[in-house]
Every structure is written in C-alpha cells, then in structure tokens.
C-alpha cells in the first residue's frame, strides 16, 4: 500500500486517478476501522489532511459554508452551531469527544454510514455537498447524494470539499432526537426536525423532517407527512400522527439482536421528541393539548 499526503486538491485527485483502488483518508475515524477489520484493502491511501483551504467555517449573506476538513469539535465551537439548534444537537450526538476531535464533516458524508447523526440535519437544511473531480466543482443535493449503504454519488476520484446551506430564519426551531444502544455508539434511531413558523410566529409555514438508521440511506420524510405539520398551530394529536406516519417510511432489517418493533417504537418517540423540542425552540405557539 502506498501513502500519499498531497498538498493540493488537484494533486490529490491525480493520485486517486493513478491508483487502481485508492481511498481517501482525512480524520481516519471511518477509514481506519474498515482497514483494521480487513473490510477494505486499497493499494493507496491519499491523506488529504494537508490540503489547504478546506478547514474553515464561514457564514456570509446567510449562507453557511463548512470545509470538508472541519472536525466535529471545531464545528461545535463555530458560530453556526451557536445559532442553529438542529446542527448543534446533531454534531453533539456524534460518537464521543475523541471521535469528534478527529472526525471530519467531509469524511462523514463520504463514508455514508446510514446511522450517521449529521446527514438528517443537512437534509433538513437542504444542504449541498460540494465536491471536486479534477475538472469541475459539483454541488450535490444532500437528499439525493446518498445512494445506498456506504454508497454516494461521488466518483472514485471525486473529493468532497465542503457543505453549504442557507441559514434558516431566526424564528425557526430545530432539534435532533436520537437513541443509542450504548453511550458513544451508533444511533439506533435518529430524527432531525426543522420547523419554520410564518412571519407572525402563529402557525408552521414549513416543516422538514429527516432520519438516519432507519433505511439504507439517511432520508427526508415524505413531503405529505411533513405537510401534516404545515399551516397549523401544533397539537399533541397531530404530532402523534406524524410520529406514526414516519414509521411507515422506514426500511428496517430484521436482524439478530435487533427488534424491528422496538426500533419502530424508538422512531415514533424520537419523532415526537424532535418535533416538540423544535417547536419549543421556535417562535411558534406552544404545543396545544387538543386540535385548535
């Protein structure tokens, strides 16, 4: 196996194109377990950690740009996490402190593990995954970026350079609710919610929900389910209906030691928790006990 540490993006793409089966390594938190367990045996590792200009978080004209090499710990300390509850919740839910210290946002989305905590938030923000393939910069819609377990739209020599999204209005409220079997472990159910009230802060003008660990890819909840929440002052019954509707969208696998019915229950609870927390954090009226 060869090891390269290119100092520019174009050099990195060139190395990836030269090798038969090269893999990109950045923070190492996903790549090293795959290597150590013998699940992959690339002929070259292209370490992009020394590539410049991929490590900053900026907010300009309402657009948040996060460089691919930004670690989760760096992102947690950056301004967008102070302002955006959903982003902060999601990043804080990832692994544990040392994993967040080394793991990068670009590495996470490229690895495409369906149980990753951050992609649902990015899907609620309608984010773009920005990549470079040696010739052009491409912007992938993050709701279509993930194709299957560990598979994305990226070509083998294409490198994620960052994530971009429009900051939601201040009156919006967001939350990520998740459950893990063990502290620091993968989420067994994770639901991201973004509620945008109308300008008067009376009803919900837009609602976006997405989840991880419930299907081969992280995904947005069907629009018709999200629409249950739109145009209303939210009440407990509506929230419960949405919690049950989300279950119908899941593609859970009956596996050893994994009880599908229990997982569905978790998703229902996490959906309700996500919606009620997001509502509390928005400028919309508090949850009503009964339909208004």
């Amino acid at each position, binding site marked *: 196996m060869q090891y390269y*540490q290119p100092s520019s993006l174009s050099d990195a793409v060139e190395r990836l194109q030269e090798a038969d089966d090269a893999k990109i*390594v950045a923070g190492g938190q996903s790549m090293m377990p795959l290597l150590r367990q013998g699940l992959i045996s690339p002929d070259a*590792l292209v370490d992009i*950690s020394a590539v410049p200009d991929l490590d900053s978080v900026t907010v300009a004209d309402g657009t948040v740009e996060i460089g691919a090499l930004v670690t989760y710990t760096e992102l947690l300390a950056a301004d967008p996490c102070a302002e955006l509850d959903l982003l902060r919740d999601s990043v804080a839910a990832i*692994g544990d402190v040392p*994993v967040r210290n080394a793991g990068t946002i670009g590495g996470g989305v490229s690895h495409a593990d369906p149980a990753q905590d951050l992609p649902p938030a990015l899907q609620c923000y309608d984010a773009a995954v920005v990549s470079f393939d040696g010739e052009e910069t491409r912007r992938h819609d993050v709701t279509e970026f993930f194709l299957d377990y560990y598979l994305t739209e990226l070509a083998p020599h294409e490198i994620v350079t960052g994530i971009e999204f429009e900051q939601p209005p201040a009156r919006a409220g967001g939350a990520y609710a998740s459950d893990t079997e063990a502290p*620091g472990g993968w989420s067994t159910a994770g639901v991201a919610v973004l509620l945008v009230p109308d300008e008067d802060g009376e009803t919900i003008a837009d609602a976006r929900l997405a989840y991880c660990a419930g299907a081969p890819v992280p995904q947005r909840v069907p629009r018709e389910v999200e629409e249950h929440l739109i145009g209303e002052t939210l009440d407990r019954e509506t929230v419960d209906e949405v919690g049950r509707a989300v279950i119908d969208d899941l593609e859970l696998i009956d596996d050893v030691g994994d009880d599908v019915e229990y997982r569905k229950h978790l998703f229902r609870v996490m959906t309700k928790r996500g919606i009620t927390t997001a509502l509390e954090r928005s400028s919309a009226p508090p949850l009503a006990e009964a339909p208004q």
Partner: protein
Amino acid sequence: MSEIDEITIELNGEERTFSVEPGVPLRDALRDELELTGTKEACEVGECGSCMAFLDGTQVKSCLIPAHQADGKEVTTVEGLAERTAEGTELHPVQEGFIEEFGMQCGYCTPGFVVSSVALLEENPDPSREEMKQHLKGNLCRCTGYTKIFDAVEYAAEEYDD
C-alpha cells in the same frame, strides 16, 4: 505531493523517528516501534478508548489515527503525563486520583481513562458528574462500574484547584 517513509514525531517531549507500513495506526507505532506500551490495544475499531493519546494537544483514539498522519506532530502518551525531575517522579494529579480513589480493577482501561480525564480537566477544571460521563463515554471499563473512576476525576479536579 509527498510520500512519507520516515515519520518523525515529538513523543513526550523527545524527538523520535520510525517507519511503518501505510495504514498502521499510531497506536501500533507507539507500542511496537517506540516501545511505549502504556497505550493499550483492545477493540481495534475505536470503541474502547484504551489507546487514548494526545496528538498536538488534542485527545484522540490512537487506533484510528494513521501513524503517517502524526508526522511532524507532538504526541503525548500516558507515559508523558508525570513530571520527571532529578528528585524523582511526580505523578499527574489525575494519576494520583486514580490511585487514591482506587479508580480501577484490572487496570487495562486505566491509561485510556487517565488520558481522557486529563483532557477533560484541561478544558474544564471543575466538571460535574454529568460532564464527566459525557466526556468519558469514549472509554469503556469492563470490570466494574464507573463510580470509582468518576471519584478519581473528582479527586484530581480538587487537586487542580490547589
């Protein structure tokens, strides 16, 4: 563009050079090439935290860091925490805490817990129990519960105050 053959790190304050195959984790380089076995190996996949070390002052699981990525950086292992002077060795307050509160049983996870606890107290010298739990959830102890470990951190935190 560079291919790295020789890796040079500042290990516990001392410059060290070694060579390993690409993809070998920093942990294996520390244990096998540099012969510091305080950094433990157990799970291989970043679940147990027994290989915890500092890379340029940041707490990482050294089994998940390619050794090549440490080139040119400072690495501190559990062996580098105590102060060694002509008069003798002065343990780090966290090490003292684990001894005083008996924060261990078999002791295998202890170096990892010590490193993580040092990282916690560097950032937050007076953590609550909840903050300790949050910070130490990357470390597993399979012998017993975590109460004595949290007691050890609390002891060390008091030492930090003085």
